[in-house]
């Protein structure tokens, strides 16, 4: 049953070194504030799962907190490559990074299978592709009815899934709107779920009957962190900070620049800085 906690406690009590953790959010609602808190708390040796690693994993990898990453597209969307992740893979800096690579279709369906309590997902995928040659986690089965060969991947079942959402109500139920990504599936597939939200509202009365809502009893911990998805966005609250994504190309290109940026903006940052960052965007846009 969801408890309301401050972010420091929500992270501190629910994560351990070596955990398999999924931070999900597909462009919309990426949980940056929670990732930065994990970096500040010194958690390490993580196995990260995420379809689109994005800046959030570039930062964790560049800080040496990641042992392994399961992913399907490691880019800065619309901008280019993830340079800290490349440095880890190509040069082992600051530590080598083990990769477990899939396609989007495979990962989406593996999360779905995890949420559905199944040990694997079967799908029509990877035909003719080389990934099954380098990822032993991809197997094939034969449909017992049609005889067709279908791909199979093990379901994804993280120790911990962290998501950012628009709203929680006072009971601790959580509402997600807009691009839903794989958040519901990643949450239901995990043993433990931590959610950061923009705000708490009295109730969800008036919300659409088929809206995406995670009941309080599927969640361990909720923290109110306005702006907590910056520089990604929160549909209905603030827009994607595309300038920050473009700027990351420069910051992440150089190890020293990266480290000093992280020092200033993450390690020495106030956990409540996200609201201010969004406020600053709001003022500069006015």
């Amino acid at each position, binding site marked *: 049953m969801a408890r309301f906690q401050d972010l420091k406690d929500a992270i501190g009590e629910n994560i351990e070194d070596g955990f398999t953790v999924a931070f999900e959010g*597909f*462009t*919309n609602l990426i949980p940056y504030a929670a990732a930065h808190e994990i970096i500040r708390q010194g958690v390490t040796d993580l196995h990260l799962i995420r*379809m*689109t690693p994005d800046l959030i994993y570039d930062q964790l990898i560049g800080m040496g907190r990641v042992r392994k990453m399961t*992913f*399907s*597209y*490691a*880019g800065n*969307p*619309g*901008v280019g*490559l993830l340079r800290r*992740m*490349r440095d880890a*893979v*190509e040069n082992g800096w600051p530590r080598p990074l083990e990769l477990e*690579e899939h*396609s*989007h*279709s495979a990962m*989406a*369906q593996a999360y*779905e299978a995890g949420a559905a309590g199944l040990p694997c997902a079967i*799908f*029509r*995928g*990877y*035909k*003719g*592709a*080389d*990934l099954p040659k*380098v990822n032993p986690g991809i197997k094939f089965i034969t449909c017992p009815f049609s005889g*067709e060969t279908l791909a199979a991947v093990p379901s994804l079942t993280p120790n911990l899934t962290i998501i950012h959402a628009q709203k929680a109500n006072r009971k601790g139920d959580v509402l997600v709107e*807009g*691009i*839903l*990504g*794989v958040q*519901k*599936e990643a949450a239901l597939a995990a043993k433990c779920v931590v959610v950061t939200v923009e705000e708490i509202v009295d109730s969800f009365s008036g919300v659409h009957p088929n809206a995406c809502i995670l009941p309080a009893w599927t969640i361990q911990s909720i923290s109110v962190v306005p702006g907590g998805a910056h520089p990604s*966005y929160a*549909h*209905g*609250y*603030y*827009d*994607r*900070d*595309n*300038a920050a*994504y*473009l700027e990351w190309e420069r910051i992440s290109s150089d190890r020293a620049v990266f480290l000093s940026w992280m020092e200033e903006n993450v390690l020495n940052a106030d956990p409540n800085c996200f609201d201010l960052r969004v406020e600053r*965007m*709001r003022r*500069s*846009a*006015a």
Partner: protein
Amino acid sequence: MAFTSEEMMTIAAARALKNDDVVFVGIGAPSAACNLARMTHAPGLTLIYESGTIGTAPTVLPLSIGDGELTDTALTTVSVPEMFRYWLQGGRISVGFLGAAQIDRFGNINTTVIGDYHRPDVRLPGGGGAPEIATSCHQTFVMMKQSRRGLVEKVDFVTSFGHGDGGDARQNAGIATKGPTLLITDLAIWKPDSKSKEFIVSAIHPGVGAEQIQESCGWPVRYAENVATTEPPSQEELLVLRDLNARTKAARERPLAMKMARRASTAG
């Protein structure tokens, strides 16, 4: 009107789309081409982005695959598992767009690594949706600028299957869809030979010479029997495309101005 080779590429790709197509759009050049088509000859075109947005009609080009603009203008937004299961794997997409770091003459694509997979010279982003876009869409269109590093004799890694080693390779691999039917570059339009499935030049963009096409291609270029010259961009095509790009640039320079206004009206 004068035009750039990139504009020609985008416009040629836009023209290949029909009003009743359902397109799985990629970011970058495909997004520009698909929205241009929607704003010109194909107003009924259905755009689907892998973020789950179905039937989007953005006024500016999204930087990422899931910008808020896509949801705001979509008919509906579904979860990503549903997108890949019901919509892509379900066989409902008529055209999928793919980009490539490397492509070979049979349309096999690499966006994974340069060099050895386990000790790569360059680690690229990986496949994303591409491996299944390549096999689940009724057909795929590839857009890329030509270069010797891009159009190669053999790709280092088959991220997305095209026509394999040619001929009946797709059927033999148990794939029922057509695969790459069009390669649109900054220099030419390529189509697969009906038998060998090798990409051959079917039209050359205005002002481009054969030597330019060969210099920027890693395999010996072959030509269709009757090679056409691509119709140059019309004034309408150019104006609509440039307007779209200008709006997009302006929006990225002040990404929050208009959105914050919107927020104020809904959350006030």
